[in-house]
């Protein structure tokens, strides 16, 4: 059980954290024919846009209400109105995700009130769904924004229903799942003869397909009619804590039972996931998963040599941090330092002595002497300074190809992860030199670190 600590610094150095609004924006990017609209100054949108473009290597539809110094003080009603009218005219999306930012929150813009007024004044906008989500930049982090956007979509669009579709299952993935991960989950569900409705579905919109035409909105992703029908599903499966609130809301609205999987990486959670699917579908687990499971067992056996007692430093948002650290420790590695961006009930359960809500400076300081660093691409400076192997995980990954297609869920994804991370360990194996075996005058400082090589081990035990 980890102790959760907060960094006490006034100055965050090398931020791990990104803002809530763009987390919410990403959730809307998983909707079909959608356009996220940040209610704030244009710069916030530009930064979010560049970040996503570099990570996904796709064009990203993202708009702004373009608040300026004056309108910020006066209140943003007019800007929201103009933005919606313009967007309706130019892009005609099915869904606008209207996302507040720091300044409009601090000013206290009553956006829900604005929307009512605008709806009255502009009946022509009736065919455009607008979901407002409140996400000040001065609170929470990226995954909180995602969670709130998903919750708001369920709250405003999902409907109660008397109809049940016993074959339909809702999937609520966290933002730490890649489009590749979501595709893997969908395949698992479909293999049981079930129809998954994924909210939101980045594997439809941000999966790198080549569209036939070019739209100013997303193309692919969850359709609104699918979202509306989620109340008719037999079950909701949540992957990551960040989706819990939305699933609970859907249960309130439409009585759909749910289960939260705090991760889908590692043998046990995958077993549980498939067992539950088998129960929901009332069929046997298809043979292909038995085969995949046995392949995973084999990979664990082959891989454990390389993970055993390795010290790993991990910095990631809570759900990703939890998935990575449990996986690593289940393979025999130890977590030397764990840093995260925001609060989560999961943090206590991270298999480390301590979880620090902090930044990559904290991470770098804690990582000295580790065997491996895992964080998003911004860890590259720390890795270079420390001279420690670095494996990228999470968003943004702007300096590697295929970030959207990495798979680390399910049996196959877990197997992938063993191979990828294990290979980094293998590549950095220390080959013995004579000095390794020379008896040292002083006893090694700690058993945990010095034991690996010959003489030091003798001194320790």
């Amino acid at each position, binding site marked *: 059980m980890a102790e959760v600590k907060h960094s006490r610094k006034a100055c*965050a150095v090398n931020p791990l954290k990104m803002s809530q609004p763009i987390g919410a924006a990403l959730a809307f990017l998983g909707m079909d024919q959608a356009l996220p609209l940040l209610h704030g100054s244009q710069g916030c949108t530009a930064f979010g846009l560049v970040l996503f473009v570099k990570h996904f290597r796709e064009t990203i539809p993202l708009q702004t209400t373009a608040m300026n110094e004056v309108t910020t003080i006066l209140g943003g009603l007019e800007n929201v109105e103009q933005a919606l009218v313009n967007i309706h005219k130019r892009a005609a999306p099915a869904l606008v995700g209207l996302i507040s930012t720091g300044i409009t929150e601090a000013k206290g813009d009553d956006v829900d009130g604005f929307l009512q007024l605008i709806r009255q004044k502009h009946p022509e906008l009736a065919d455009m769904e607008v979901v407002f989500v409140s996400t000040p930049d001065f609170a929470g982090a990226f995954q909180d924004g995602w969670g709130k956007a998903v919750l708001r979509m369920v709250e405003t669009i999902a409907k109660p229903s008397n109809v049940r579709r016993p074959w339909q299952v809702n999937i609520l993935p966290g933002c730490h799942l890649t489009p590749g991960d979501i595709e893997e989950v969908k395949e698992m569900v479909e293999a049981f003869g079930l129809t998954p409705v994924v909210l939101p579905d980045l594997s439809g919109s941000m999966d790198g397909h080549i569209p036939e035409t070019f739209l100013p909105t997303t193309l692919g992703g969850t359709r609104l009619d699918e979202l509306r029908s989620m109340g008719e599903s037999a079950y909701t499966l949540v992957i990551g804590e960040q989706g819990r609130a939305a699933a609970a809301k859907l249960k309130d609205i439409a009585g759909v039972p749910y289960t939260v999987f705090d991760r889908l990486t590692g043998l046990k959670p995958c077993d549980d996931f498939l067992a539950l699917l088998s129960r929901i579908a009332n069929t046997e687990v298809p043979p292909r998963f038995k085969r995949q499971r046995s392949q995973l067992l084999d990979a664990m056996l082959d891989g454990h040599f390389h993970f055993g007692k390795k010290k790993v430093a991990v910095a990631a948002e809570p759900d990703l941090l939890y998935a990575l650290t449990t996986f690593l420790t289940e393979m025999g590695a130890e977590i030397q330092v764990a840093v995260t961006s925001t609060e989560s009930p999961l943090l206590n359960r991270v298999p480390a002595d301590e979880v620090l809500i902090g930044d990559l400076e904290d991470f770098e300081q804690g990582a000295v002497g580790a065997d491996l660093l895992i964080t998003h691409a911004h860890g590259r400076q720390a890795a270079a300074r420390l001279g420690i192997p670095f494996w990228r995980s999470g968003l943004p990954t702007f300096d590697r190809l295929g970030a959207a297609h990495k798979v680390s869920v399910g049996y196959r994804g877990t197997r992938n992860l063993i191979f990828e991370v294990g290979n980094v360990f293998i590549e950095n194996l220390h080959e013995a030199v004579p000095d390794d075996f020379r008896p040292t005058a002083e006893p090694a400082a700690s058993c945990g670190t010095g034991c690996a090589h010959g003489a030091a081990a003798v001194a320790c035990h």
Partner: protein
Amino acid sequence: MSALQQKVASVLEEPGCATNQAKGEKERKAGCKKQLTPGAAAGGCAFDGAKIALQPIVDVAHLVHGPIACEGNSWDSRHTLSSGSHIYRTGFTTDMNEMDVVYGGEKKLYRAIKEIIDKYDPPAVFVYQTCLPAMIGDDIEAVCKAAAAKFGKPVIPVNAPGFVGSKNLGNKLGGEALLDYVIGTREPEYTTPCDINLIGEYNVVGELWQVKPLFDELGIRILATISGDGRYNDVATAHKARAAIMLCSQALINVARKMEERYGIPFFEGSFYGVSDMSDALRKISALLVRQGGPADLPERAEALIAREEAKAWARLEPYKARLKGKRVLLFTGGVKSWSVVSALQEVGMEIVGTSMRKTTANDREKVKEIMGTDAHMFDELPPREMYRMLRDSQADVMLSGGRSQFVALKAKTPWVEINQERHHALAGYDGIVNLVDEIDKALYNPVWQQVRQPAPWERPDWEQDLEEWQSCNQEECAGEVCHG
């Protein structure tokens, strides 16, 4: 009017700005502030612009006062390089939280400055204002002043919160911070009659280093670069230069003009992109230095260097001419690079089928028109959908643009070369133009284009017949591919 509003107004009325010169008195007073259209705007904020202009000063700690959005979403994403300190790449931010919004963020900012000085001890700290603290009234100027007095170190306020305007305005506000607090605060160890400043050169992917040897050879010393690979103490001595070259269109025109006004440093607008532009810059700076009391033989030596380098560049470009002649280019970028790149590409026989004029000044526009002989292919705006259509209909063989439109080109299966801030290849000087042409050549002749444009076999009209032929070929053990293709 607040001090910031006055500053913004004065920068917007910049008399040196070509666009403003063309305006009447009243229009000019109104400033060049364009009203953004909500729901149809794209582009960075003033804070972004200020950071672009100043972050290339490499030994300074750049501290962003604001919530996580401003720095957390954007840090370490620019490709300006350093030959020394790397502290400029470190992301510092006060990461304001709810409490800071309620009680004000000034105390936290002060503590943040202290932490940075204690831990990193840079020669100076630059503090960037952003929207939220500006809105709640945090006075960064006062905090910086107090911190500077207390810690005995320059702490420079950069007052360009995002919501005052565009990236371009932010460039200038960043420049104002240098004028107000940095330039002229130190004396150089020594001076030479050939000391110059480069204003608006950011050393993107090392382009400063690409041209510096040319100046070195002529004995021209770059006293200060504003701000590529810059050092705080060098920028502080920039007032002692004899002349300056202003680059990057007019991003820092206010700096160039005010330095002329205050310190009598003459400048001209130049570019290091393209053979003729590079030569032009060398010629002009030599002449200017002579006028400022530099060695009389400088122009002559410059000519010799130009002749040698041009000959080398042409010789290196020669092999590309046959491969690139007549290839059609869509050039989509703002500002400086339009006209300098246009002339460069024409030098190797490429045809410009379109160029964007967004963000360019009237001057730039004139130059492009002059070079292309017409303004028929100048777009003010080319929405992605339109751009995509043009490329799908193969109205261009290759597109040159910034990262944002990269995927429009790629999805349209069109070769693409990056030429903005985020480019990975140094394109300046005589070597740079060869690099650019080589990049274009590399993109155009990559074998993927042919492959990705082929429809899948089952999408071809008589695919079944094709398949049969291919199969029978295979059986006869001839190379299937030959028949198939």
